[in-house]
């Protein structure tokens, strides 16, 4: 096993881990505007790491150049979509949940 393959496998496993954590945040966090953090940042990092691992495994070629182009595209586009969704939700009238919110049944410890 060469050093290149070891780096590729490490990047792939780290990307799978961050992808899992982002997905878990998507169902565990309490309201919409905190879920946007999980979908916008952690998922983007996981996808970038996995595609980067594939590019490292491929070596210097046109395919890895295209994979790096996809990485840059995802890094720009994925937070932009989540930001557009959050802006649309705010315009639509969804209120962010604050700490001293008097919403019933949802205290700070009652995260579902």
């Amino acid at each position, binding site marked *: 096993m060469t050093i290149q393959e070891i780096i590729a*496998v490490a990047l*792939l496993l780290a*990307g*799978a881990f961050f*992808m*899992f954590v*982002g*997905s*878990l945040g*998507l*169902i565990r966090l309490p309201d*919409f505007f905190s*879920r*946007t953090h999980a*979908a916008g940042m952690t*998922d*983007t990092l996981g*996808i970038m790491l*996995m*595609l980067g691992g*594939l590019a490292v*495994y*491929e070596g210097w070629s*046109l*395919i890895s150049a*295209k*994979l790096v*182009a*996809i990485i840059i*595209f*995802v890094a720009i*586009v*994925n937070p*932009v*979509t*989540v930001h*557009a*969704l*959050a*802006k*649309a*939700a705010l*315009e*639509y*009238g*969804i209120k962010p949940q604050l700490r001293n919110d008097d919403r019933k049944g949802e205290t700070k410890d009652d995260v579902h």
Partner: protein
Amino acid sequence: MEYLSTHLTAVVTAIILIPFYRVLKGPTVFDRLLGAGAIAAKTTVIICLIGFIYRRIDLFVDITLAYALLNFIGIIAVSKYFESQEVREE
């Protein structure tokens, strides 16, 4: 690499089921859209891994780029639709 790609495809497919719960049970329509966007973003990685399984990554990498572009355009269009005045007044 085929061994690792096959197993990683299974792992990412299992991870995709987690945002799918949010798509099914989201309280608002924006939660469902957020989960759908997360699923589409993970699907780009699955397409690349399938290209490594079949040893045709030169073909699949272009499909990945087109898929990411369509995901971006779709979510921007839907969020602009929900931002518009006519939808909000209903």
